[in-house]
């Protein structure tokens, strides 16, 4: 059975097979291929929920192949014009008639045809260059232009990876415009620290041709950088345009925001005087400083994520290094140990465990300071069963506490593993403390459940216990028959917990059910396994996990 971490990758049509398929479909079905192509494109996108595997930039350059359609239209149009002219030339009577009717226009036909062919060839060349030679693509050039020294830009692979990483981690998407924390990917690429102005363009043009009225809507976002160069991205709708402006407002708050061709736009783009440019840059810096100060205050507010209980029983979230230093040294002044407690709002993960409380008994310079870190029980407000403790110097304790405030857990190598015994703690017996993670943790009460069944790829958030039980009873001794019940931290999808089961295919335990529990750890995923003979045992495990009844983890072995 495969573990969750190495579960099968989803199938999708990779480059260039997707293009080949589309071409074959067009060749065979002609216009009827369009819905099928759209369906395949939708399915391909769905099969890559974490974004295109090839990367956003490469996908974007390869997408320029659509330019071949325009190229083909131009070539066809140009070819048709020249063919028409040549045919007319071969018929003198017809040629004379056309000369009379069209006069000068007759001679324009071959020129226009040749021009259309040239445009078509150019478009085809650009499309193929963008799609097949990313180094020379317009997108790569646009990224290079945003670097401080374009001539010293790294290879295109690194350039694209740089933008992709940012978009994958921080990307907000408004149509085809992706806004990360460092980069904006549209028809061109902009570096956010260089953005000085963002302008929306919304125009509606109507054209009358005979009885028909044709309306053209233009939705564009114009980004102006610190060199007064403009990157333009065309969007589909007003909604996308508004969303894009909102996203950029959040990511580049110090930039000027306005409407295309407004006074602000003109002033920014056409500032020729050095003095004027300097004033604009100074105003930008001032706005940036203001926003950074606001951000700092907000961060300070968010940093208040722990409750410090002081020796007199009072509590505070305003914890500074000075407070910690003073508390740890206070025993030198008062002549006795000083108790303190730190409780994080959200339990801290580290060293393969989750911790919900730190208790300290400061000894000052004369006595060691005792620190005890209590493991999280899995339920808020319920005391943990295990803890880790160690005596240390005040200096070392200060380091541990500072780390704790940053959400970091120290290496537990020289710490003693303790177990709750009534109101006190006792050392965990040797055979139970063989490793840093002796037993799997319980599922998280607040994280939502998702179910994935082996034969039905894709996880389902809407399911009941009956669906789950039915899925478990349907497990067979087949390679793709497995069921995963999974949780992910909504705040941090990197943190997960799951229980999964399948039947062993071969070996002495063939036919038995393997139940595995896995979770995220600081050094990668952790996995425990237990073999059970009956599906009822499997159902019991899943039921205890699903209903948070305290899953019996005693028989699970870490693998």
């Amino acid at each position, binding site marked *: 059975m495969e573990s969750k971490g190495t579960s099968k990758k989803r199938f999708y049509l990779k480059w260039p097979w997707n293009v080949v398929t589309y071409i074959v479909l067009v060749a065979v079905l002609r216009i009827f291929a369009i819905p099928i192509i759209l369906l395949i494109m939708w399915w391909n996108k769905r099969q890559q929920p974490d974004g295109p595997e090839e990367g956003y930039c490469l996908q974007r350059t390869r997408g320029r192949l659509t330019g071949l359609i325009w190229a083909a239209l131009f070539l066809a149009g140009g070819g048709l014009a020249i063919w028409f002219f040549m045919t007319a030339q071969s018929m003198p009577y017809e040629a004379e008639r056309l000369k009379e009717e069209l006069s000068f226009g007759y001679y324009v036909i071959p020129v226009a045809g040749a021009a259309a062919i040239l445009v078509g060839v150019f478009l085809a060349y650009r499309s193929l260059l963008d799609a097949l030679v990313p180094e020379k693509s317009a997108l790569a050039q646009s990224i290079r232009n945003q670097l401080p020294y374009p001539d010293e830009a790294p290879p295109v692979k690194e350039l694209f990876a740089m933008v992709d990483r940012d978009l994958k981690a921080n990307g907000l998407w408004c149509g085809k415009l992706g806004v990360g924390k460092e980069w904006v990917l549209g028809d061109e690429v902009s570096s956010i620290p260089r953005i000085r102005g963002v302008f929306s363009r919304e125009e509606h043009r109507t054209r009358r041709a005979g009885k028909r009225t044709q309306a053209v809507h233009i939705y564009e976002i114009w980004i102006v950088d610190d060199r007064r160069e403009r990157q333009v991205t065309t969007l589909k709708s007003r909604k996308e345009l508004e969303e894009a402006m*909102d996203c950029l407002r959040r990511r580049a708050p110090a930039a000027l925001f306005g409407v295309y061709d407004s006074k602000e736009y003109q002033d920014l783009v056409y500032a020729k005087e050095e003095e004027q440019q300097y004033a604009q840059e100074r105003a930008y810096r001032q706005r940036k400083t203001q926003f950074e100060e606001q951000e700092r205050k907000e961060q300070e507010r968010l940093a208040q994520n722990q409750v410090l209980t002081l020796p007199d029983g009072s509590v505070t979230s305003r914890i500074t290094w000075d407070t910690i230093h003073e508390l740890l040294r206070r025993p030198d002044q008062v002549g006795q140990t000083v108790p303190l407690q730190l409780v994080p709002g959200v339990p801290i993960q580290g060293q393969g465990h989750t911790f919900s409380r730190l208790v300290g008994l400061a000894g000052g310079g004369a006595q060691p300071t005792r620190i005890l870190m209590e493991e999280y029980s899995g339920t808020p407000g319920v005391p943990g069963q295990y803890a880790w403790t160690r005596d240390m110097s005040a200096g070392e304790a200060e380091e541990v506490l500072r780390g704790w405030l940053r959400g970091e857990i120290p290496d537990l190598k020289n710490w003693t593993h303790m177990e709750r015994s009534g109101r006190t703690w006792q050392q965990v017996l040797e055979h139970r403390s063989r490793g840093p993670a002796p037993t799997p943790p319980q599922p998280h009460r607040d994280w939502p459940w998702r179910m994935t069944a082996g034969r039905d790829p894709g996880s389902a958030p809407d399911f009941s216990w009956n669906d789950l039980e039915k899925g478990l009873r349907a497990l067979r001794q087949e390679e793709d028959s497995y069921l995963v019940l999974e949780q992910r931290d*909504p705040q941090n999808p990197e943190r997960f917990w799951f229980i999964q089961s399948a039947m062993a295919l071969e070996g002495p335990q063939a036919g038995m059910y393997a139940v595995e529990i896995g979770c995220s750890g600081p050094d990668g995923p952790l996995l425990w396994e237990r073999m059970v003979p009956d599906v009822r045992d499997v159902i019991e495990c899943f039921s205890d996990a699903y209903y948070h009844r305290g899953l019996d983890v005693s028989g699970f072995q870490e693998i």
Partner: protein
Amino acid sequence: MGRFFSDPVERALKYIYYDLRSRRGQEGLQLLQQAVQEGDADACCLLARCLYGPEYTWPGHNFPVDEQMGDELMRRSVLEGSAIGTLLSLRCGVMNRKLAQAMPLSFQEAFDTVLDKAEHGEPLCQMIIGNSYYWGDFPEIQGKTREDFDSDDAVQSYLRENYAKCEDWLWRSLRSGISTGGVNLANFYREGKAGLISPRPEKAIEVYRYGAEKGYPSYFFYYANELYDQGNKGEAFDFYRRAAEAGEPRAFFWAGYSYELGEGVPKDNARAAQYYHQALSAPIQEKVNPANRMGMCYYDGRGVERDYAKAFQLLKWAEDHGGPAMLYYLGACYANGQGTQQDYAKAFAYLEKVNWDCPHAFYLLGKMYCNGLGVPEDIAKGVEYLQKAGDYVEVKEELRHYKKTLFGKWVRR
């Protein structure tokens, strides 16, 4: 020797009862303690009253409470022949048959002595005499029983006549400068005496107004309460502030509240928080409201530096002590792990009760429903809450994660 009591006792009386604005109550207490050590029987019963609790003197003095010591001092006062002690002992539960037999003065002798001082203008004695009538101690003092009267009508008439005497004495004490005397006078007007004297609540307000005009701190507060009940909030807040400035602890909350609302004064969150803090440290019973307001100030960083731990502690304390639960704030603390451990189930329990237009609560509820935090996942309901939450950045960002399918179902993007 003073005119009515020993010098230290008269000075103590001034500091404790007659001149509250001087804030020298603690000095008065020390004088009484010294006088007790020197064997002053009157000082014993006066010190006992101080130790019985703020309602016997004034909460603004912040005297320690020690009822046992108070009882001991009161007995000592009676046994050592203090006239005021003998009368006051009737009101504090220490008088029993054994003590009555051992006391050197009879109740009537004690009453006559105190009455004499009262008639010569001693305010405390005027109040004690007034209270003897108000509380109905006079039959015991005069040794009257049912057998002394021919008929029930005679009894009624005797009681009516004597109860009514409290009015004059309590007014005299109030006018002479002892604000405590007016408390029972106002009660007498408001409640009357069942079957004997009808209530006259309008006269009670007169008492409070008189006290307030005289500048007694507690009367600013009482009068403000009356004004507030009548719907005259602006003037009420003004009197609450005056009371708080004069050191009346029961008015601290209201003064703070007026500064928070900017009611009759410029808005001043720092001053509001300062008053709430004073209310929480004062020897008063009513603390849930200042605890809730102070909790909110700490949560929002209004007037004080933001401190979620303190905010949660105060808000939870207020709720646990019978105060109204600040549903949004407690829900937000639990949902965000601010000042307490994150607990979505508890957060939901608070937030779902929010039944007014509270965009921040709707945002949290929307997020919880959409992500199945503390409740079963329900994206449609979550989106509904998010749409109700308004148009601020976090809401927009959260909404961006969901889309409506062609069939009208909300799904995650």
